[in-house]
Protein backbone atom coordinates (compact mmCIF):
# COMPACT_ATOMS: atom_id res chain seq x y z
CA UNK A 1 0.00 0.00 0.00
CA UNK A 2 1.38 3.33 -1.05
CA UNK A 3 -0.60 5.51 1.34
CA UNK A 4 -3.46 5.22 3.80
CA UNK A 5 -6.76 5.96 2.16
CA UNK A 6 -9.47 4.23 4.18
CA UNK A 7 -12.19 5.55 1.89
CA UNK A 8 -10.54 4.22 -1.21
CA UNK A 9 -9.95 0.88 0.46
CA UNK A 10 -13.61 0.65 1.39
CA UNK A 11 -14.49 1.53 -2.19
CA UNK A 12 -12.12 -1.21 -3.43
CA UNK A 13 -13.79 -3.84 -1.30
CA UNK A 14 -17.19 -2.53 -2.35
CA UNK A 15 -16.39 -2.78 -6.06
CA UNK A 16 -14.89 -6.24 -5.63
CA UNK A 17 -17.90 -7.48 -3.70
CA UNK A 18 -20.29 -6.18 -6.32
CA UNK A 19 -18.13 -7.78 -9.01
CA UNK A 20 -18.02 -11.13 -7.25
CA UNK A 21 -21.77 -11.09 -6.62
CA UNK A 22 -22.65 -10.15 -10.20
CA UNK A 23 -20.33 -12.86 -11.51
CA UNK A 24 -21.81 -15.43 -9.13
CA UNK A 25 -25.46 -14.49 -9.61
CA UNK A 26 -26.17 -16.56 -12.76
CA UNK A 27 -24.81 -19.65 -11.06
CA UNK A 28 -26.71 -18.97 -7.83
CA UNK A 29 -29.91 -18.64 -9.83
CA UNK A 30 -29.12 -21.87 -11.65
CA UNK A 31 -28.68 -23.64 -8.36
CA UNK A 32 -31.93 -22.21 -6.97
CA UNK A 33 -33.82 -23.25 -10.09
CA UNK A 34 -32.43 -26.76 -9.81
CA UNK A 35 -34.01 -27.18 -6.37
CA UNK A 36 -37.63 -26.36 -7.27
CA UNK A 37 -40.39 -28.01 -9.24
CA UNK A 38 -40.90 -27.01 -12.87
CA UNK A 39 -44.19 -25.37 -11.92
CA UNK A 40 -42.68 -23.03 -9.33
CA UNK A 41 -40.15 -21.74 -11.86
CA UNK A 42 -42.61 -20.98 -14.63
CA UNK A 43 -44.68 -18.74 -12.34
CA UNK A 44 -42.83 -15.44 -12.68
CA UNK A 45 -41.10 -14.31 -10.63
CA UNK A 46 -39.43 -17.57 -9.70
CA UNK A 47 -38.39 -18.03 -6.06
CA UNK A 48 -34.97 -16.61 -5.15
CA UNK A 49 -34.24 -19.03 -2.32
CA UNK A 50 -33.43 -22.74 -2.69
CA UNK A 51 -36.36 -25.13 -2.56
CA UNK A 52 -36.74 -28.71 -1.36
CA UNK A 53 -36.54 -30.62 -4.64
CA UNK A 54 -32.74 -30.92 -4.71
CA UNK A 55 -32.48 -34.69 -4.33
CA UNK A 56 -35.48 -35.39 -6.51
CA UNK A 57 -34.30 -33.24 -9.43
CA UNK A 58 -30.69 -34.41 -9.41
CA UNK A 59 -31.71 -38.05 -9.11
CA UNK A 60 -34.15 -37.53 -11.98
CA UNK A 61 -31.59 -36.06 -14.39
CA UNK A 62 -28.78 -38.42 -13.46
CA UNK A 63 -30.88 -41.49 -14.20
CA UNK A 64 -33.00 -39.89 -16.93
CA UNK A 65 -36.21 -41.04 -15.25
CA UNK A 66 -38.29 -37.97 -16.22
CA UNK A 67 -38.49 -37.26 -19.91
CA UNK A 68 -39.18 -33.66 -20.84
CA UNK A 69 -40.22 -32.30 -24.23
CA UNK A 70 -36.60 -32.29 -25.43
CA UNK A 71 -34.05 -35.03 -24.90
CA UNK A 72 -34.27 -36.94 -21.64
CA UNK A 73 -31.24 -39.18 -21.84
CA UNK A 74 -29.61 -39.98 -18.47
CA UNK A 75 -27.12 -37.26 -17.55
CA UNK A 76 -25.03 -39.80 -15.65
CA UNK A 77 -24.11 -41.39 -18.96
CA UNK A 78 -23.41 -37.96 -20.53
CA UNK A 79 -21.08 -37.03 -17.67
CA UNK A 80 -19.21 -40.25 -18.31
CA UNK A 81 -18.86 -39.48 -22.03
CA UNK A 82 -17.61 -35.97 -21.19
CA UNK A 83 -15.14 -37.31 -18.65
CA UNK A 84 -13.69 -39.93 -20.98
CA UNK A 85 -13.42 -37.43 -23.87
CA UNK A 86 -11.80 -34.75 -21.73
CA UNK A 87 -9.28 -37.23 -20.30
CA UNK A 88 -8.43 -38.69 -23.71
CA UNK A 89 -7.96 -35.21 -25.18
CA UNK A 90 -5.82 -33.99 -22.28
CA UNK A 91 -3.68 -37.11 -21.88
CA UNK A 92 -3.47 -37.82 -25.61
CA UNK A 93 -2.32 -34.32 -26.41
CA UNK A 94 0.25 -34.30 -23.63
CA UNK A 95 1.61 -37.73 -24.59
CA UNK A 96 2.10 -37.12 -28.32
CA UNK A 97 3.42 -33.61 -27.66
CA UNK A 98 6.01 -34.76 -25.12
CA UNK A 99 7.33 -37.30 -27.62
CA UNK A 100 7.50 -34.97 -30.60
CA UNK A 101 8.98 -32.11 -28.58
CA UNK A 102 11.65 -34.53 -27.32
CA UNK A 103 12.46 -35.50 -30.90
CA UNK A 104 12.61 -31.89 -32.08
CA UNK A 105 14.83 -30.68 -29.24
CA UNK A 106 17.16 -33.63 -28.64
CA UNK A 107 17.71 -35.12 -32.09
CA UNK A 108 19.14 -33.95 -35.34
CA UNK A 109 17.38 -35.49 -38.29
CA UNK A 110 16.71 -34.62 -41.93
CA UNK A 111 13.73 -32.33 -42.59
CA UNK A 112 13.60 -31.41 -38.93
CA UNK A 113 12.77 -27.80 -39.80
CA UNK A 114 10.01 -28.95 -42.13
CA UNK A 115 8.46 -31.09 -39.40
CA UNK A 116 8.81 -28.23 -36.96
CA UNK A 117 7.00 -25.79 -39.23
CA UNK A 118 4.30 -28.32 -40.07
CA UNK A 119 3.49 -28.58 -36.39
CA UNK A 120 3.82 -24.83 -35.96
CA UNK A 121 1.23 -24.06 -38.64
CA UNK A 122 -1.45 -26.03 -36.78
CA UNK A 123 -1.37 -23.35 -34.08
CA UNK A 124 -2.96 -20.95 -36.49
CA UNK A 125 -6.21 -22.59 -37.48
CA UNK A 126 -8.83 -23.50 -34.88
CA UNK A 127 -10.98 -26.52 -35.63
CA UNK A 128 -13.95 -24.26 -36.44
CA UNK A 129 -12.57 -23.07 -39.76
CA UNK A 130 -11.88 -26.52 -41.24
CA UNK A 131 -14.88 -28.17 -39.73
CA UNK A 132 -16.67 -29.73 -42.72
CA UNK A 133 -13.75 -31.55 -44.31
CA UNK A 134 -12.72 -32.76 -40.85
CA UNK A 135 -16.26 -34.03 -40.39
CA UNK A 136 -15.95 -35.71 -43.81
CA UNK A 137 -12.76 -37.50 -42.75
CA UNK A 138 -14.34 -38.71 -39.52
CA UNK A 139 -17.42 -39.95 -41.30
CA UNK A 140 -15.37 -41.69 -44.02
CA UNK A 141 -13.35 -43.44 -41.34
CA UNK A 142 -16.58 -44.58 -39.66
CA UNK A 143 -15.75 -42.67 -36.48
CA UNK A 144 -19.06 -40.83 -35.97
CA UNK A 145 -20.58 -41.47 -32.56
CA UNK A 146 -17.35 -42.85 -31.15
CA UNK A 147 -14.84 -41.66 -28.58
CA UNK A 148 -12.18 -41.65 -31.31
CA UNK A 149 -14.26 -39.27 -33.41
CA UNK A 150 -14.97 -37.04 -30.43
CA UNK A 151 -11.36 -36.73 -29.37
CA UNK A 152 -8.67 -37.36 -32.00
CA UNK A 153 -9.37 -34.34 -34.25
CA UNK A 154 -9.13 -32.09 -31.19
CA UNK A 155 -5.73 -33.55 -30.34
CA UNK A 156 -4.43 -32.31 -33.70
CA UNK A 157 -2.96 -29.03 -32.51
CA UNK A 158 0.44 -27.98 -31.39
CA UNK A 159 0.02 -25.77 -28.34
CA UNK A 160 1.41 -28.44 -26.05
CA UNK A 161 4.31 -29.30 -28.35
CA UNK A 162 5.51 -25.72 -28.20
CA UNK A 163 5.16 -25.50 -24.50
CA UNK A 164 7.28 -28.60 -23.98
CA UNK A 165 9.79 -27.53 -26.61
CA UNK A 166 10.16 -24.22 -24.78
CA UNK A 167 10.66 -26.01 -21.50
CA UNK A 168 13.13 -28.59 -22.85
CA UNK A 169 15.29 -25.79 -24.22
CA UNK A 170 15.78 -24.55 -20.65
CA UNK A 171 16.89 -27.95 -19.32
CA UNK A 172 20.69 -27.73 -18.78
CA UNK A 173 22.82 -29.67 -21.25
CA UNK A 174 24.85 -31.06 -18.37
CA UNK A 175 21.96 -33.37 -17.53
CA UNK A 176 22.13 -35.03 -20.95
CA UNK A 177 25.89 -35.30 -20.72
CA UNK A 178 25.68 -36.86 -17.28
CA UNK A 179 23.02 -39.30 -18.47
CA UNK A 180 25.17 -40.31 -21.44
CA UNK A 181 28.27 -40.77 -19.29
CA UNK A 182 26.20 -43.03 -17.08
CA UNK A 183 25.29 -45.00 -20.18
CA UNK A 184 21.64 -44.02 -20.44
CA UNK A 185 20.05 -44.17 -23.89
CA UNK A 186 17.70 -41.50 -25.18
CA UNK A 187 14.49 -43.17 -24.00
CA UNK A 188 15.97 -43.79 -20.58
CA UNK A 189 16.92 -40.12 -20.34
CA UNK A 190 13.42 -39.14 -21.50
CA UNK A 191 11.68 -41.37 -18.97
CA UNK A 192 13.90 -40.83 -15.95
CA UNK A 193 15.04 -37.22 -16.35
CA UNK A 194 12.97 -35.21 -18.77
CA UNK A 195 9.44 -36.32 -17.88
CA UNK A 196 9.90 -35.96 -14.11
CA UNK A 197 11.38 -32.48 -14.68
CA UNK A 198 8.35 -31.52 -16.75
CA UNK A 199 5.87 -32.48 -14.02
CA UNK A 200 4.60 -28.93 -13.35
CA UNK A 201 4.25 -28.14 -17.04
CA UNK A 202 2.36 -31.39 -17.51
CA UNK A 203 0.02 -30.60 -14.62
CA UNK A 204 -0.62 -27.06 -15.91
CA UNK A 205 -1.34 -28.31 -19.39
CA UNK A 206 -3.56 -31.06 -18.10
CA UNK A 207 -5.83 -28.56 -16.33
CA UNK A 208 -6.17 -26.36 -19.41
CA UNK A 209 -6.72 -29.24 -21.80
CA UNK A 210 -9.20 -31.00 -19.53
CA UNK A 211 -11.36 -27.87 -19.41
CA UNK A 212 -10.95 -27.42 -23.16
CA UNK A 213 -12.05 -31.00 -23.77
CA UNK A 214 -14.93 -30.97 -21.30
CA UNK A 215 -16.36 -27.72 -22.71
CA UNK A 216 -16.25 -28.67 -26.41
CA UNK A 217 -19.48 -27.88 -28.19
CA UNK A 218 -19.44 -27.38 -31.95
CA UNK A 219 -17.44 -30.51 -32.73
CA UNK A 220 -19.49 -32.95 -30.60
CA UNK A 221 -22.63 -31.32 -32.00
CA UNK A 222 -21.58 -32.56 -35.43
CA UNK A 223 -20.12 -35.97 -34.71
CA UNK A 224 -22.64 -37.29 -32.19
CA UNK A 225 -26.11 -38.09 -33.41
CA UNK A 226 -26.75 -40.87 -30.93
CA UNK A 227 -28.08 -39.89 -27.48
CA UNK A 228 -25.80 -42.49 -26.00
CA UNK A 229 -22.70 -40.56 -27.07
CA UNK A 230 -23.77 -37.02 -26.14
CA UNK A 231 -21.34 -35.16 -23.89
CA UNK A 232 -23.20 -33.32 -21.15
CA UNK A 233 -22.80 -29.87 -22.76
CA UNK A 234 -24.62 -31.12 -25.86
CA UNK A 235 -27.22 -32.81 -23.65
CA UNK A 236 -28.25 -29.47 -22.14
CA UNK A 237 -28.70 -27.87 -25.54
CA UNK A 238 -30.80 -30.84 -26.68
CA UNK A 239 -32.96 -30.49 -23.58
CA UNK A 240 -33.90 -26.87 -24.30
CA UNK A 241 -34.60 -27.39 -27.98
CA UNK A 242 -38.36 -27.71 -27.38
CA UNK A 243 -39.09 -23.98 -26.96
CA UNK A 244 -38.53 -21.71 -24.03
CA UNK A 245 -41.74 -21.80 -21.97
CA UNK A 246 -42.42 -25.52 -22.19
CA UNK A 247 -39.12 -26.38 -20.52
CA UNK A 248 -38.66 -28.33 -17.37
CA UNK A 249 -36.23 -25.67 -16.31
CA UNK A 250 -35.54 -27.31 -12.97
CA UNK A 251 -34.09 -30.35 -14.75
CA UNK A 252 -32.22 -28.28 -17.33
CA UNK A 253 -30.63 -26.26 -14.54
CA UNK A 254 -29.72 -29.34 -12.51
CA UNK A 255 -27.98 -30.65 -15.63
CA UNK A 256 -26.21 -27.30 -16.08
CA UNK A 257 -24.96 -27.47 -12.47
CA UNK A 258 -23.62 -30.97 -13.07
CA UNK A 259 -21.95 -29.88 -16.31
CA UNK A 260 -20.19 -26.97 -14.57
CA UNK A 261 -19.06 -28.85 -11.50
CA UNK A 262 -16.06 -30.95 -12.63
CA UNK A 263 -14.18 -28.22 -14.53
CA UNK A 264 -14.98 -25.62 -11.84
CA UNK A 265 -13.60 -27.89 -9.12
CA UNK A 266 -10.46 -28.48 -11.15
CA UNK A 267 -9.93 -24.74 -11.65
CA UNK A 268 -10.44 -23.93 -7.99
CA UNK A 269 -8.44 -26.76 -6.48
CA UNK A 270 -5.66 -26.78 -9.04
CA UNK A 271 -5.55 -22.97 -9.18
CA UNK A 272 -1.77 -22.72 -9.23
CA UNK A 273 -1.41 -25.03 -12.24
CA UNK A 274 -4.42 -23.51 -13.92
CA UNK A 275 -2.88 -20.03 -13.86
CA UNK A 276 0.51 -21.34 -14.94
CA UNK A 277 -1.19 -23.20 -17.78
CA UNK A 278 -3.07 -20.13 -18.95
CA UNK A 279 0.02 -17.97 -18.95
CA UNK A 280 2.28 -20.60 -20.54
CA UNK A 281 -0.03 -21.60 -23.37
CA UNK A 282 -0.32 -18.01 -24.51
CA UNK A 283 3.40 -17.43 -24.90
Amino acid at each position, binding site marked *: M*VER*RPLLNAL*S*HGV*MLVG*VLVVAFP*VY*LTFVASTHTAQE*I*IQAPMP*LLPGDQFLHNYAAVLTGSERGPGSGAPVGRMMWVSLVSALVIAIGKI*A*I*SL*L*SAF*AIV*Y*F*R*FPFKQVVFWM*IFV*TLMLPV*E*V*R*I*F*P*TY*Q*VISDLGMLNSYAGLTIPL*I*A*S*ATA*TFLFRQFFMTVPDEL*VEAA*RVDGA*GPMRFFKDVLVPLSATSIAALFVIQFIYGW*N*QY*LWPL*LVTTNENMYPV*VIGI*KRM*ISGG*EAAQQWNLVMAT*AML*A*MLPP*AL*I*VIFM*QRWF*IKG*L*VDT*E*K
Partner: protein
Amino acid sequence: MAAEKRVVFRSGWLPWALVGPQAAVILVFFFWPAAQTLLQSIQRQDAFGTSTEWVGFANFAQIFSDPSYLASFKTTALFSVLVAVVGIAVSLLLAVFADRVIRAALVYKTLLIWPYAVAPAVAGVLWLFMFAPSVGVVSYALHRAGVDWNHLLNAGDAMTLIVMAAVWNQVSYNFLFFLAGLQSIPKSLIEAAAIDGARPWRRFWTIIFPLLSPTTFFLLVINIIYAFFGTFGIIDAATEGGPGKETAVLVYKLYFDGFKALDLGGSAAQSVVLMAIVIGLTVIQFRFIESKVNY
Protein backbone atom coordinates in the same frame (compact mmCIF):
# COMPACT_ATOMS: atom_id res chain seq x y z
CA MET B 1 14.44 -21.01 -33.77
CA ALA B 2 18.18 -20.89 -34.12
CA ALA B 3 18.70 -22.21 -30.61
CA GLU B 4 19.96 -25.77 -30.67
CA LYS B 5 21.05 -28.17 -27.99
CA ARG B 6 24.79 -28.66 -27.82
CA VAL B 7 24.42 -32.31 -27.01
CA VAL B 8 22.10 -34.37 -29.14
CA PHE B 9 21.29 -38.02 -29.41
CA ARG B 10 22.03 -39.87 -32.61
CA SER B 11 19.61 -42.31 -34.13
CA GLY B 12 18.27 -42.82 -37.63
CA TRP B 13 14.82 -44.07 -36.82
CA LEU B 14 14.02 -43.00 -33.25
CA PRO B 15 13.18 -39.31 -33.91
CA TRP B 16 10.76 -40.37 -36.65
CA ALA B 17 9.08 -42.82 -34.33
CA LEU B 18 8.80 -40.04 -31.74
CA VAL B 19 7.22 -37.46 -34.03
CA GLY B 20 5.21 -40.19 -35.77
CA PRO B 21 2.01 -40.07 -33.68
CA GLN B 22 1.72 -36.30 -33.82
CA ALA B 23 2.62 -36.17 -37.50
CA ALA B 24 -0.02 -38.80 -38.30
CA VAL B 25 -2.74 -36.98 -36.37
CA ILE B 26 -2.04 -33.57 -37.89
CA LEU B 27 -1.72 -34.97 -41.41
CA VAL B 28 -5.04 -36.78 -41.30
CA PHE B 29 -7.04 -34.34 -39.18
CA PHE B 30 -5.40 -31.05 -39.99
CA PHE B 31 -3.59 -30.85 -43.32
CA TRP B 32 -5.94 -33.08 -45.27
CA PRO B 33 -9.10 -31.19 -44.14
CA ALA B 34 -7.42 -27.81 -44.57
CA ALA B 35 -6.38 -28.75 -48.12
CA GLN B 36 -9.90 -30.02 -48.81
CA THR B 37 -11.32 -26.70 -47.65
CA LEU B 38 -9.08 -24.80 -50.04
CA LEU B 39 -10.01 -27.18 -52.85
CA GLN B 40 -13.75 -27.08 -52.23
CA SER B 41 -13.73 -23.32 -52.12
CA ILE B 42 -12.94 -23.25 -55.85
CA GLN B 43 -15.28 -26.11 -56.79
CA ARG B 44 -19.01 -26.47 -57.00
CA GLN B 45 -21.02 -29.67 -56.58
CA ASP B 46 -24.44 -30.29 -58.04
CA ALA B 47 -27.39 -30.98 -55.73
CA PHE B 48 -26.79 -34.74 -55.64
CA GLY B 49 -23.06 -34.57 -55.07
CA THR B 50 -22.45 -36.61 -58.22
CA SER B 51 -20.51 -34.14 -60.33
CA THR B 52 -17.99 -31.52 -59.36
CA GLU B 53 -16.82 -28.66 -61.50
CA TRP B 54 -14.10 -26.07 -61.13
CA VAL B 55 -15.50 -22.62 -60.73
CA GLY B 56 -12.44 -20.55 -59.80
CA PHE B 57 -13.39 -17.72 -57.52
CA ALA B 58 -17.11 -17.90 -58.22
CA ASN B 59 -17.85 -19.11 -54.69
CA PHE B 60 -16.06 -16.11 -53.25
CA ALA B 61 -17.85 -13.77 -55.64
CA GLN B 62 -21.09 -15.38 -54.57
CA ILE B 63 -20.60 -15.03 -50.80
CA PHE B 64 -19.38 -11.47 -51.09
CA SER B 65 -22.40 -10.47 -53.13
CA ASP B 66 -24.71 -12.13 -50.60
CA PRO B 67 -26.18 -9.38 -48.39
CA SER B 68 -26.65 -11.79 -45.46
CA TYR B 69 -22.94 -12.63 -45.54
CA LEU B 70 -21.96 -8.98 -45.49
CA ALA B 71 -24.46 -8.40 -42.69
CA SER B 72 -22.82 -11.26 -40.79
CA PHE B 73 -19.48 -9.46 -41.16
CA LYS B 74 -20.97 -6.35 -39.59
CA THR B 75 -22.55 -8.41 -36.81
CA THR B 76 -19.23 -10.10 -36.10
CA ALA B 77 -17.35 -6.80 -36.08
CA LEU B 78 -19.84 -5.20 -33.69
CA PHE B 79 -19.95 -8.28 -31.48
CA SER B 80 -16.20 -8.71 -31.21
CA VAL B 81 -15.55 -5.02 -30.54
CA LEU B 82 -18.21 -4.99 -27.81
CA VAL B 83 -16.94 -8.21 -26.23
CA ALA B 84 -13.33 -7.00 -26.29
CA VAL B 85 -13.96 -3.46 -25.06
CA VAL B 86 -16.55 -4.25 -22.38
CA GLY B 87 -14.64 -7.34 -21.26
CA ILE B 88 -11.35 -5.47 -20.97
CA ALA B 89 -12.92 -2.47 -19.20
CA VAL B 90 -14.74 -4.59 -16.61
CA SER B 91 -11.80 -6.84 -15.84
CA LEU B 92 -9.35 -3.95 -15.70
CA LEU B 93 -11.60 -2.21 -13.19
CA LEU B 94 -11.81 -5.35 -11.06
CA ALA B 95 -8.08 -6.03 -11.32
CA VAL B 96 -7.12 -2.47 -10.32
CA PHE B 97 -9.29 -2.61 -7.21
CA ALA B 98 -8.18 -6.16 -6.39
CA ASP B 99 -4.59 -5.00 -6.64
CA ARG B 100 -5.21 -2.27 -4.04
CA VAL B 101 -6.35 -4.72 -1.37
CA ILE B 102 -3.36 -7.01 -1.52
CA ARG B 103 -4.27 -9.31 1.31
CA ALA B 104 -7.80 -9.92 0.09
CA ALA B 105 -6.74 -10.11 -3.58
CA LEU B 106 -6.13 -13.86 -3.32
CA VAL B 107 -9.64 -14.47 -2.06
CA TYR B 108 -11.18 -12.32 -4.78
CA LYS B 109 -9.04 -14.09 -7.33
CA THR B 110 -10.44 -17.46 -6.30
CA LEU B 111 -13.96 -16.05 -6.43
CA LEU B 112 -13.47 -14.64 -9.92
CA ILE B 113 -11.57 -17.32 -11.81
CA TRP B 114 -14.16 -20.09 -12.01
CA PRO B 115 -16.33 -18.68 -14.87
CA TYR B 116 -13.46 -19.73 -17.13
CA ALA B 117 -14.43 -23.32 -16.37
CA VAL B 118 -18.01 -22.89 -17.58
CA ALA B 119 -18.59 -24.17 -21.10
CA PRO B 120 -19.68 -21.41 -23.50
CA ALA B 121 -22.84 -23.32 -24.34
CA VAL B 122 -23.69 -23.63 -20.64
CA ALA B 123 -22.98 -19.92 -20.14
CA GLY B 124 -25.43 -19.26 -22.96
CA VAL B 125 -28.09 -21.34 -21.24
CA LEU B 126 -27.51 -19.59 -17.89
CA TRP B 127 -27.94 -16.13 -19.36
CA LEU B 128 -30.85 -17.24 -21.50
CA PHE B 129 -32.55 -18.46 -18.34
CA MET B 130 -32.11 -15.11 -16.57
CA PHE B 131 -33.36 -13.10 -19.53
CA ALA B 132 -35.99 -15.43 -21.03
CA PRO B 133 -39.04 -13.23 -21.66
CA SER B 134 -41.52 -15.52 -19.91
CA VAL B 135 -39.60 -17.09 -17.00
CA GLY B 136 -36.43 -15.01 -16.58
CA VAL B 137 -35.86 -13.24 -13.28
CA VAL B 138 -34.00 -10.31 -14.78
CA SER B 139 -36.43 -9.87 -17.65
CA TYR B 140 -39.24 -9.87 -15.06
CA ALA B 141 -37.46 -7.16 -13.05
CA LEU B 142 -36.81 -5.17 -16.22
CA HIS B 143 -40.46 -5.45 -17.12
CA ARG B 144 -41.47 -4.12 -13.73
CA ALA B 145 -39.05 -1.24 -14.23
CA GLY B 146 -40.72 -0.42 -17.51
CA VAL B 147 -38.12 -1.88 -19.88
CA ASP B 148 -39.70 -4.08 -22.48
CA TRP B 149 -37.00 -6.73 -22.84
CA ASN B 150 -37.49 -9.41 -25.44
CA HIS B 151 -34.42 -10.83 -27.12
CA LEU B 152 -36.62 -13.08 -29.26
CA LEU B 153 -38.01 -10.03 -31.06
CA ASN B 154 -35.51 -7.24 -30.54
CA ALA B 155 -32.13 -7.55 -32.26
CA GLY B 156 -30.47 -5.08 -29.87
CA ASP B 157 -31.61 -7.10 -26.85
CA ALA B 158 -30.33 -10.30 -28.45
CA MET B 159 -26.92 -8.74 -29.11
CA THR B 160 -26.78 -7.37 -25.54
CA LEU B 161 -27.57 -10.82 -24.18
CA ILE B 162 -24.79 -12.62 -26.03
CA VAL B 163 -22.28 -9.85 -25.29
CA MET B 164 -23.05 -10.12 -21.56
CA ALA B 165 -22.75 -13.89 -21.61
CA ALA B 166 -19.49 -13.77 -23.58
CA VAL B 167 -17.96 -11.13 -21.31
CA TRP B 168 -18.99 -13.09 -18.22
CA ASN B 169 -17.41 -16.24 -19.60
CA GLN B 170 -14.15 -14.47 -20.44
CA VAL B 171 -13.83 -12.16 -17.41
CA SER B 172 -11.62 -14.55 -15.42
CA TYR B 173 -9.08 -14.78 -18.19
CA ASN B 174 -8.77 -11.02 -18.62
CA PHE B 175 -8.76 -10.47 -14.86
CA LEU B 176 -5.89 -12.89 -14.28
CA PHE B 177 -3.71 -11.31 -16.95
CA PHE B 178 -4.43 -7.78 -15.73
CA LEU B 179 -3.74 -8.71 -12.12
CA ALA B 180 -0.44 -10.30 -13.11
CA GLY B 181 0.41 -7.21 -15.14
CA LEU B 182 -0.41 -4.89 -12.24
CA GLN B 183 1.61 -6.91 -9.78
CA SER B 184 4.67 -6.75 -12.01
CA ILE B 185 4.71 -2.92 -12.03
CA PRO B 186 7.54 -1.83 -9.71
CA LYS B 187 6.13 -0.37 -6.51
CA SER B 188 8.88 2.24 -6.44
CA LEU B 189 7.38 3.98 -9.48
CA ILE B 190 4.02 4.30 -7.78
CA GLU B 191 5.61 5.47 -4.54
CA ALA B 192 7.71 8.09 -6.32
CA ALA B 193 4.62 9.50 -7.99
CA ALA B 194 2.76 9.49 -4.67
CA ILE B 195 5.56 11.42 -3.03
CA ASP B 196 5.39 13.93 -5.86
CA GLY B 197 1.77 14.41 -4.92
CA ALA B 198 -0.01 12.44 -7.63
CA ARG B 199 -3.32 11.08 -6.39
CA PRO B 200 -4.51 7.56 -7.23
CA TRP B 201 -6.68 8.66 -10.18
CA ARG B 202 -3.80 10.57 -11.74
CA ARG B 203 -1.32 7.76 -11.00
CA PHE B 204 -3.57 5.30 -12.77
CA TRP B 205 -3.73 7.27 -16.00
CA THR B 206 -0.12 8.48 -16.10
CA ILE B 207 1.74 5.43 -14.81
CA ILE B 208 -0.28 2.29 -14.40
CA PHE B 209 -2.37 2.38 -17.55
CA PRO B 210 0.58 3.10 -19.92
CA LEU B 211 2.66 0.37 -18.28
CA LEU B 212 -0.23 -2.06 -18.74
CA SER B 213 -0.56 -1.29 -22.44
CA PRO B 214 1.27 -4.45 -23.60
CA THR B 215 -1.13 -6.56 -21.53
CA THR B 216 -4.10 -4.58 -22.81
CA PHE B 217 -3.08 -4.99 -26.42
CA PHE B 218 -2.44 -8.69 -25.97
CA LEU B 219 -5.88 -9.12 -24.38
CA LEU B 220 -7.47 -7.11 -27.16
CA VAL B 221 -6.23 -9.56 -29.78
CA ILE B 222 -7.08 -12.59 -27.63
CA ASN B 223 -10.59 -11.31 -26.97
CA ILE B 224 -11.23 -10.66 -30.64
CA ILE B 225 -10.08 -14.18 -31.50
CA TYR B 226 -12.31 -15.43 -28.68
CA ALA B 227 -15.32 -13.47 -29.96
CA PHE B 228 -14.76 -14.83 -33.46
CA PHE B 229 -14.23 -18.49 -32.67
CA GLY B 230 -14.90 -19.25 -29.03
CA THR B 231 -18.46 -18.00 -28.72
CA PHE B 232 -20.30 -20.38 -31.01
CA GLY B 233 -21.75 -22.27 -28.04
CA ILE B 234 -23.03 -19.09 -26.37
CA ILE B 235 -24.80 -17.91 -29.50
CA ASP B 236 -26.24 -21.30 -30.39
CA ALA B 237 -27.61 -21.78 -26.88
CA ALA B 238 -28.86 -18.24 -26.21
CA THR B 239 -30.18 -16.87 -29.50
CA GLU B 240 -29.52 -19.43 -32.29
CA GLY B 241 -28.37 -16.50 -34.38
CA GLY B 242 -31.78 -14.79 -33.99
CA PRO B 243 -34.13 -13.00 -33.77
CA GLY B 244 -33.76 -13.12 -37.57
CA LYS B 245 -30.08 -13.35 -38.42
CA GLU B 246 -28.96 -10.44 -36.29
CA THR B 247 -26.67 -12.41 -34.00
CA ALA B 248 -25.37 -14.88 -36.62
CA VAL B 249 -21.63 -14.23 -36.46
CA LEU B 250 -19.36 -15.62 -39.19
CA VAL B 251 -18.69 -18.97 -37.51
CA TYR B 252 -22.39 -19.41 -36.84
CA LYS B 253 -23.27 -18.63 -40.43
CA LEU B 254 -20.60 -21.05 -41.63
CA TYR B 255 -22.13 -23.82 -39.55
CA PHE B 256 -25.65 -22.91 -40.63
CA ASP B 257 -24.91 -22.70 -44.36
CA GLY B 258 -22.83 -25.86 -44.38
CA PHE B 259 -24.88 -28.17 -42.18
CA LYS B 260 -28.40 -26.85 -42.44
CA ALA B 261 -28.38 -25.37 -45.94
CA LEU B 262 -25.78 -27.86 -47.30
CA ASP B 263 -23.99 -25.31 -49.47
CA LEU B 264 -20.54 -26.94 -49.62
CA GLY B 265 -18.74 -24.59 -51.99
CA GLY B 266 -20.08 -21.49 -50.28
CA SER B 267 -19.21 -22.67 -46.79
CA ALA B 268 -15.73 -23.73 -47.92
CA ALA B 269 -15.22 -20.21 -49.27
CA GLN B 270 -16.44 -18.84 -45.93
CA SER B 271 -13.94 -21.12 -44.17
CA VAL B 272 -11.12 -19.77 -46.31
CA VAL B 273 -12.10 -16.20 -45.44
CA LEU B 274 -12.09 -17.11 -41.75
CA MET B 275 -8.70 -18.79 -42.13
CA ALA B 276 -7.33 -15.57 -43.60
CA ILE B 277 -8.75 -13.57 -40.69
CA VAL B 278 -7.40 -15.87 -38.00
CA ILE B 279 -3.97 -16.06 -39.64
CA GLY B 280 -3.91 -12.28 -39.80
CA LEU B 281 -4.80 -11.98 -36.13
CA THR B 282 -2.23 -14.60 -35.14
CA VAL B 283 0.51 -12.82 -37.08
CA ILE B 284 -0.34 -9.56 -35.32
CA GLN B 285 -0.14 -11.38 -32.02
CA PHE B 286 3.24 -13.01 -32.73
CA ARG B 287 4.70 -9.78 -34.03
CA PHE B 288 3.57 -8.09 -30.89
CA ILE B 289 5.09 -10.75 -28.65
CA GLU B 290 8.40 -10.40 -30.49
CA SER B 291 8.37 -6.64 -30.03
CA LYS B 292 7.52 -7.02 -26.35
CA VAL B 293 10.73 -8.95 -25.77
CA ASN B 294 12.75 -5.96 -26.85
CA TYR B 295 11.84 -3.51 -24.17
